[in-house]
C-alpha cells in the first residue's frame, strides 16, 4: 500500500506546527546518538568557593576535539535578567574547535562574558550564556551542604538549575561560518554543535552546584545524587528571535518537516507490525504520560492544550487497548486515520512522534537529510514564464490567495529588527511607528501581491521581463520557485494577522530541537527544558535511546 505524504496545506498551518512535539528526529536526541562513543572529559575546573571561575569540558574522538569553555561570574541580584537586553549573566560559554591554548583562554575571558558585544573568532563554534534559577540553585546548595539531598518535587517542578537565554552559532559575532565545518560527518544534522554546548552546560551546572556546596561545608556536604541530576535539564527562555529563522530558511524548514512526514509515511506503509515494535510504541506512550502530568505552566493557552492532550491521550490508550488489533495489516496507518478523525492536533502530533520510537531503520537515515545547502536554490529561474509562476502560486498557496489584505485584521502586525539589540520584534502597524522598515516576513501578503501583479502581465512573458517592473517582489518570486521543489518550505498562514500566535513558530523550531514542557509566558516568548532525563556524559556509552519517556 502506498501512503501519500501529508498535505502541506494542512501540516504547514501554524496551529498544526505549533502542536509538534519532540521525536527521535529531534536534534538533541540525534546529537546524543552521534556523540555517545566520543571520549568525554572535564579538562579544567577552577572555581572559587562561590562557584566563580573557569571550567573546560571536552568531547574527543581521534584527532577531533570540541571544548566547552565556561566562565562563571559574580552577578548582583538586580543584574540578573533573562531579557535579551541583559548585559551580564551568571555564566557565559563558548564551544571552541580543538583544545584552547592559554592565549585563547585569555582572549575568550575578555570576550565571551560580553556576549553580543564581544568578538569571537573562527576557532569558536557556538556562544551562549545562562542564568541560575536562583531559588532552585540556592535550595540545592543549602541541602547538599547540610549533607541531604534537595526536595525533588521542587526541582522537578522547575526542571533545571540554569536556563540559557540565547545560543548563537553560524558566524554570529565572528564565530566560525558553517562552511568551515560543514563537511564534518559528526555534525551532519542541524544545530548539532548548539546541542553539544547546551548538553555540556548542563553538566557544568551540576559540577558547580556540588562545588559550591562542598566549599560551604567541606565536612558535611554531599554531591547531588546522579539520579536527581538526570531528571534535570537546562532551561531556556526563547523570544521572537527564533521566529524569523523558519521563514528565512525555507529549504531547511522543508527538510525538517519532510523528514518527519517521510518517517510517518513509511511507518504507515508497514504491512505487518512486529510485536516488539507495537509493544515498544505502547510502552513509550504509557510512560510518556508523566511528561504531560508534570508539565507545569501558568499559561491558560498552554494549560488548555495540556488538558486536551491528556484527555485525548487517555481516549487513544483506551482505543488502543480495547478496540484495536495490532495484528491487522497496516496498523499504524489505521491508527493515524483514527487519530485524524477523533482527536485534536496536539494529540495527533504527539502520537506521530511516538510512532517513530520503534523504527531506527526508518528514522536514522532521515537525520542526515535534515540540513540544507541553501545557496543552491538562491538563483531565480528567470527563463520561466508568468503563466508557470501563476500556476505554482495557485497550487502551492491556494489558501493564502484567499486572504483579503485590505482588511486591517489581516494586515495588523509588522516584523522589525530592534535598534538596541538587533532582535526581531512584532508590532501593531496601526499603533506603532516603524512599519516602513518592515522585515520581509509578511510572505502571505507579498505572495498575494505577486499573484495580483502577475495577472497584469502576459502569460507567455518570462520572469526576467516581469522583474524589470516588479523588483519589490523579488524575494517572494524566489520563494515561489523554492516551494515548487520543496513543498514544506512555507508556513501556510498569515504571519502578520491580528490573530497570529508567534509562539507557534517558536514551538515548531523548539520541537525539532527536542525541547520538552513548553511554558508560554506570553504570546511572544516561552520557557522550555532541554535534556531533562537525558543520560549524563559518563552514562553515554550505554544508554536507552527512549530516555525521554523513562
Amino acid at each position, binding site marked *: 500500500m502506498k501512503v501519500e505524504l501529508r498535505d502541506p496545506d494542512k501540516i504547514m498551518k501554524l496551529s498544526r506546527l505549533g502542536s509538534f512535539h519532540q521525536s527521535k528526529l529531534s536534534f538533541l536526541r540525534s546529537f546524543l546518538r552521534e556523540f555517545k562513543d566520543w571520549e568525554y572529559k572535564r579538562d579544567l575546573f577552577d572555581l572559587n568557593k562561590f562557584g566563580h571561575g573557569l571550567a573546560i569540558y571536552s568531547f574527543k574522538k581521534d584527532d577531533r576535539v570540541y571544548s566547552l569553555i565556561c566562565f562563571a561570574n559574580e552577578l548582583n541580584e538586580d543584574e540578573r535578567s533573562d531579557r535579551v537586553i541583559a548585559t551580564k549573566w551568571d555564566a557565559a560559554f563558548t564551544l571552541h574547535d580543538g583544545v584552547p591554548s592559554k592565549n585563547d583562554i585569555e582572549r575568550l575571558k575578555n570576550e565571551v562574558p560580553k556576549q553580543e558585544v564581544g568578538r569571537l573568532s573562527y576557532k569558536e563554534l557556538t556562544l551562549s550564556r545562562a542564568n541560575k534559577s536562583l531559588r532552585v540553585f540556592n535550595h540545592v546548595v543549602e541541602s547538599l551542604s547540610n549533607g541531604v539531598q534537595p526536595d525533588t518535587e521542587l526541582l522537578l517542578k522547575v526542571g533545571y538549575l540554569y536556563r540559557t537565554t540565547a545560543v548563537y552559532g553560524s558566524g554570529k559575532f565572528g564565530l566560525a561560518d558553517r562552511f568551515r565545518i560543514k563537511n564534518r560527518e559528526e555534525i551532519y544534522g542541524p544545530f548539532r554543535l548548539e546541542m553539544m554546548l547546551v548538553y555540556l552546560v548542563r553538566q557544568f551546572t551540576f559540577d558547580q552546584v556540588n562545588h559550591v556546596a562542598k566549599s560551604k561545608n567541606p565536612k558535611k556536604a554531599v554531591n547531588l545524587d546522579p539520579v536527581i541530576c538526570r531528571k534535570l535539564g537546562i532551561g531556556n527562555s526563547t523570544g521572537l528571535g527564533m521566529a524569523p529563522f523558519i521563514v528565512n530558511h525555507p529549504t531547511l524548514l522543508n527538510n525538517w518537516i519532510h523528514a518527519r512526514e517521510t518517517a510517518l509515511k513509511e511507518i504507515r506503509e508497514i504491512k505487518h507490525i512486529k510485536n516488539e515494535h507495537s509493544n515498544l510504541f505502547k510502552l513509550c506512550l504509557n510512560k510518556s504520560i508523566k511528561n504531560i502530568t508534570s508539565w507545569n505552566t501558568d499559561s491558560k493557552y498552554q494549560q488548555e492544550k495540556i488538558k486536551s492532550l491528556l484527555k485525548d491521550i487517555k481516549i487513544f490508550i483506551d482505543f488502543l487497548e480495547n478496540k484495536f488489533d495490532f495484528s491487522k495489516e497496516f496498523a499504524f496507518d489505521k491508527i493515524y486515520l483514527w487519530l485524524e478523525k477523533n482527536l485534536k492536533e496536539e494529540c495527533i502530533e504527539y502520537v506521530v512522534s511516538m510512532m517513530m520510537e520503534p523504527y531506527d531503520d526508518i528514522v536514522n537515515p532521515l537525520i542526515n537529510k535534515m540540513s540544507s545547502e541553501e545557496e543552491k536554490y538562491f538563483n531565480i529561474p528567470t527563463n520561466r514564464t508568468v503563466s508557470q509562476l501563476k500556476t505554482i502560486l495557485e497550487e502551492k498557496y491556494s489558501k493564502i490567495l484567499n486572504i483579503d489584505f485590505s482588511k486591517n485584521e489581516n494586515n495588523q502586525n509588522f516584523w522589525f529588527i530592534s535598534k538596541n539589540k538587533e532582535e526581531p520584534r512584532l508590532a501593531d502597524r496601526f499603533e506603532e511607528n516603524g512599519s516602513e522598515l518592515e522585515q520581509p516576513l509578511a510572505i502571505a501578503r507579498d505572495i498575494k501581491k505577486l499573484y495580483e501583479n502577475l495577472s497584469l502581465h502576459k502569460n507567455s512573458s518570462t520572469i526576467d521581463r516581469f522583474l524589470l517592473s516588479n523588483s519589490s517582489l*523579488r524575494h517572494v518570486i524566489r520563494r515561489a520557485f523554492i516551494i515548487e521543489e520543496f513543498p514544506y518550505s512555507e508556513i501556510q498562514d498569515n504571519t502578520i494577522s491580528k490573530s497570529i500566535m508567534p509562539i507557534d513558530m517558536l514551538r515548531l523550531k523548539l520541537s525539532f530541537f527536542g525541547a520538552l514542557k513548553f511554558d508560554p509566558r506570553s504570546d511572544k516568548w516561552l520557557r522550555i527544558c532541554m535534556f531533562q532525563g537525558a543520560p549524563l556524559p559518563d552514562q553515554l556509552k550505554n544508554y536507552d535511546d527512549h530516555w525521554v519517556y523513562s
Partner: protein
Amino acid sequence: MKSLSEIETVSKRSSRAVGYSWGVAEEIGKNIRMLEMFGISGIKNLNYYFRIKKKKEFEKVNLISKKNEITKLEFCPIVAGLNFLDQVRSLETLKEIKFEKIAFPLLFLPFISRASEVIGKKLELNIDKRLFLLNYNISIYSNSLNEGIVDIGNTVSIKFQENIDSFKENEWEELYKLSQKTFVEENESSRSVGAGSGLTDND
C-alpha cells in the same frame, strides 16, 4: 575578523537601507559575501558606492543589449548586474556584451560570476585593463586582485567562452596513451565472464 555570515547580513540590511528592495538586497548580500570570500574588496566598494549614491544619480539599464551606452550618467552596477544575471540565458547568443561606464564595477562582477554558473559557461569580464575569468562561480582568475576601490569601469565587456578544450587533440592522445599503461591485457577467460557475456540483453 568578520565572518562571512556577518558580511552578508550587514550588506543585505544596508542595501535595503539605501532603498533597494529586500529581494535585491538579498542578492547584494550574497554577492558581497562571495567577493570577500574570493579576496576581492566587496565591503569597501559597497560602502563607498552607497556613500556616493547619496549625492549622485546613476543610470539604470533594463534590457541588456550587445552595446549598452549611457545617455548621461554612469550605470548603476547593481541594476546592470542584476539584469545581466536575470537575462543571461537570452544574452548568450550575443557572444560579447559591452557596457560603457559602469560605476564601481567590482560590485557588478559577482552577478557575472553567478551568471557563469547559470549558463554553465566561463565568462571573461574585462574592466578597462583588468581581466577576470569567471569559472562557473567556483573560482575567479584575475590579473587584478587586491585593488581596493575601483570607482569606474570606462569600458566593460563580457565574453561568453565556449565549452571547448584548452588543449590540442594530439596532446590529449599523448596523455591518453600514457594512461593506458595502467590497463591489463585481457584473456579469453576474463572476457567470457565480463558484463553482458553469454546472455542476450533483450530478455
